[in-house]
């Protein structure tokens, strides 16, 4: 395999994208009608790419496993989307968004990609407003902003705590317009089972119709994977139940390198696990850290009293509280990046200060914000600022307007009123920075196969900043891929329709059917979930918030053994030719069982700490993460060689031209 070529265009950083767009090949409108493109996934990246490709004139076939493209998990993103608009006049710029993203990613992302992302960020907001996305506005009728972790400006646009929903419905509406015109053929309830490579190029996919079990062949001149991240390898995560790695993993097995699999984001503010029955975890948006203060008691006896139900957190005096983020990181306080906030919570809980029965929870407290807003409102309305009850009431109204849906969600799940008592939160798996390796054009190492959105590894390095996932998904789908894919497809204008009768399609379909039959006929002892939960526990215990050599080595062996047991003993009820959720799930868990091992292997090889990847062997005396730029300033791109343990490592060195690589500090 040749050296990894990132295909970063020449020229100065700020001119690369503009020059690249001017120099790449185009396909004429008449020829676009002769070209088919497959898109797998309908989240922000997949929906926006489908809509734009169809609008440009390509024939698009789009696939999702849900019952409608509008259900894709981008819908659940809460807090907001970043853009360097500088509407607040607080010193924001393309460069600053670029810089914050590189620094937030702990200097493990590709400079040119991140600059391009920052550059197109402003177009996203213009585009979404034109589509009728109802962002929050101020009384003057202009767009409102708030702050997210790891930055010192307000550049996050939002729609209450439902920003992802509104952006996705915007992209879905753009798609619907093209479905109505016949330019997109939409396949709901279809799962991609494999990629078909013909003559070294991606030329189609095999799918399973989840309603009747039919195996289908679909051909195209290019295939775009937009199937999201793989957080569900941990079983418990904030991902949707159906979120899976399978589309990415299938292309990996067909030749696409998988990059930085161990870079996972553990989000600091999620509702803690309540018991064995738990099926997923729920995020409480980072935007809450604009107003919430995070703390645990200073005294262990208070912790004990709280756990025993003898003391309420509201009864603990100010001086007996440890606002540990404000203490450790005075410059950024409660708005440090996610990786830093998560580790700090773990540190306090490991030291015995966790505030719930499991010992794994800290407080997120809104009492100060409620008082602050209440006094402001009382002042504005000319009322008594010293009337505590009135101030509380007015303050609660402000907080409700800002975060009402999040507070309601918390109350429904936990059965406590967060307006009256602090929320309990704990870190949970949320997002995966790692993913399919792509070049500057978002093409994987298979010609004609692209990966966009969370499915690729590109822009967030070792840690993603809040409100940047929505930005990247839409940037890739609306504004990057539609240009770069033309450069490749320009060579395909005379190819004509791709036949699905080739031996390659035949072979891929046969393999898919073989695996399905094996699952159905296995008649084993344990359900699919039994294995998924076991895998999740290994991942969380040994590849979670902190990792060490021994744990990772153990994880590799345990996952291997679990995988063997799975194939021998998994029990999939029902038949192959019906609506069979267990069968669909078995295929997904089989892929997680391979990815999990590669994940641990990647974490084992990277003996430095960076971003979300914390190796216990590599930390400062104060317990902060210690990067090793001399030895690890590269992207790990893994080539599939038959099984995860044999995967071959390729290194893409990261060069920084415009940015001085520094130790990340939020103190």
């Amino acid at each position, binding site marked *: 395999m040749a050296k990894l070529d990132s295909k970063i265009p020449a020229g100065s950083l700020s001119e690369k994208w503009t020059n690249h767009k001017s120099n790449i090949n185009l396909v004429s409108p008449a020829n676009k009608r002769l070209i088919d493109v497959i898109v797998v996934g309908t989240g922000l990246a997949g929906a926006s790419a489908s809509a734009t490709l169809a609008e440009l004139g390509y024939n698009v076939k789009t696939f999702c496993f*849900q019952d409608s493209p509008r259900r894709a998990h981008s819908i659940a993103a809460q807090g907001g989307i970043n853009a360097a608009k500088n509407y607040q006049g607080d010193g924001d710029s393309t460069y600053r968004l670029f810089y914050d993203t590189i620094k937030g990613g702990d200097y493990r992302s590709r400079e040119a990609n991140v600059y391009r992302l920052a550059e197109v960020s402003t177009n996203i907001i213009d585009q979404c407003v034109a589509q009728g996305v109802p962002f929050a506005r101020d009384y003057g009728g202009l767009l409102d902003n708030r702050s997210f972790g790891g930055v010192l400006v307000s550049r996050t646009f939002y729609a209450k705590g439902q920003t992802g929903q509104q952006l996705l419905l915007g992209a879905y509406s753009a798609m619907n317009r093209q479905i109505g015109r016949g330019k997109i053929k939409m396949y709901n309830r279809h799962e991609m089972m494999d990629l078909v490579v013909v003559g070294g190029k991606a030329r189609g996919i095999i799918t399973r119709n989840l309603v009747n079990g039919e195996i289908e062949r679909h051909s195209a001149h290019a295939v775009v994977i937009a199937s999201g991240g793989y957080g569900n390898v941990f079983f418990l995560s904030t991902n949707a139940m159906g979120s899976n790695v399978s589309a990415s993993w299938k292309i990996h097995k067909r030749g696409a390198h998988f990059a930085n699999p161990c870079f996972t984001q553990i989000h600091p503010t999620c509702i803690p696990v*309540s018991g064995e029955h738990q099926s997923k975890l729920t995020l409480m948006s980072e935007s809450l850290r604009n107003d919430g203060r995070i703390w645990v008691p200073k005294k262990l006896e208070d912790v004990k009293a709280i756990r025993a139900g003898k003391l309420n957190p509201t009864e603990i005096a100010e001086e007996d509280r440890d606002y540990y983020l404000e203490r450790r990181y005075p410059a950024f306080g409660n708005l440090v990046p996610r990786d830093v906030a998560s580790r700090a919570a773990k540190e306090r809980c490991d030291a015995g200060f966790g505030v719930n029965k499991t010992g794994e929870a800290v407080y997120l407290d809104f009492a100060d914000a409620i008082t602050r807003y209440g006094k402001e409102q009382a002042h504005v309305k000319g009322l008594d600022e010293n009337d505590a009850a009135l101030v509380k009431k007015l303050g609660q109204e402000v907080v409700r307007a800002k975060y009402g849906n999040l507070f309601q969600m918390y109350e429904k799940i936990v059965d406590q009123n967060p307006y009256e008592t602090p929320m309990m939160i704990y870190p949970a798996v949320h997002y995966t920075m790692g993913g399919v390796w792509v070049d500057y054009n978002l093409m994987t190492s298979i010609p004609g196969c692209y990966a966009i959105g969370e499915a690729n590894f590109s822009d967030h390095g070792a840690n993603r900043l809040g409100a940047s996932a929505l930005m990247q998904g839409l940037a890739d789908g609306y504004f990057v891929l539609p240009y770069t894919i033309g450069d490749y497809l320009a060579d395909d204008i005379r190819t004509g329709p791709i036949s699905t009768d080739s031996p390659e399609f035949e072979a891929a379909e046969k393999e898919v059917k073989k695996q399905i039959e094996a699952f159905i006929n296995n008649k084993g002892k344990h359900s699919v979930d039994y294995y998924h939960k076991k895998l999740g526990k290994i991942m969380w215990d040994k590849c979670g918030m902190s990792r060490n050599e021994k744990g990772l080595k153990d994880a590799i062996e345990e996952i291997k053994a679990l995988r063997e047991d799975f194939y021998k003993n998994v029990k999939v009820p029902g038949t192959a030719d019906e*609506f069979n959720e267990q069968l669909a799930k078995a295929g997904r868990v089989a892929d997680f069982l391979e990815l999990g091992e590669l994940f641990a292997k990647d974490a084992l090889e990277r003996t430095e700490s960076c971003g979300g990847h914390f190796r216990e062997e590599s930390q400062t005396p104060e317990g902060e993460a210690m990067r090793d730029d001399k030895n690890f300033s590269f992207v790990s791109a893994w080539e599939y060689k038959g099984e995860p343990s044999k995967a071959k490592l390729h290194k893409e060195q990261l060069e920084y031209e415009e940015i001085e690589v520094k130790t990340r500090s939020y103190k």
Partner: protein
Amino acid sequence: MNLTLKIWRQANVDAKGEMVTYSVAGVSPDMSFLEMMDMHNEQLIENGEDPVAFDHDCREGICGMCSMFINGEAHGPDRLVTTCQLHMRKFKDGDTITIEPFRANAFPVIKDLTVDRSAFDRIQQAGGFVSVNTSGNTQDANAIPIDKHDADKAFDAASCIGCGACVASCKNASAMLFVSAKVSQYALLPQGKVEATDRVLNMVNQMDEEGFGNCTNTGACEVECPKGISLENIARMNREYLAATLKG
């Protein structure tokens, strides 16, 4: 808690369905309703029986995929929540719980509690969009100020999750609340006003073609809507529709 479940079982769209009674033991009040269903399914798998098929995905009340009719109410007895956010603490030990799919002619049953709601997609494809290309070369996002009250109302309408509880709750299986939410969102925003006439005509036409019933203002949809979408939107759509037909 120990519970009796009466669940609608139907093998596929053509099969005849029936209610089947099961008992489930050891339910924790902290479980969500779907976690209770998971536990029940694990038991069925263990016993070599076919697990109950039901739609679900995000499990945090936003994707709109879960869709059960529990004890005669869409998304069950709690208010302003989807089934995935409903918790077992809303039930008592010894309760019998009836679980059916969202029923409507326009929502054929795929299997058990899973229904086909693609009619909703087709209504959106008929006009639920602003016809602007996605080049990003539009005007600046702040070029047109929008009255905060209108923006907030547009947001409230836009928060519909397309679950179909309104249809399932309506004695006429009408989709008016769903359609009117989208029509209202765009009617309230300057970007959507440009093609408001065609939009409302096309969407209502498609709604009728899909076989949804008419609205008789009973308001059950508003009560059962997990997102609190208001009946005001139906009134607004009726005004929009009247204006469009007069114009047309």
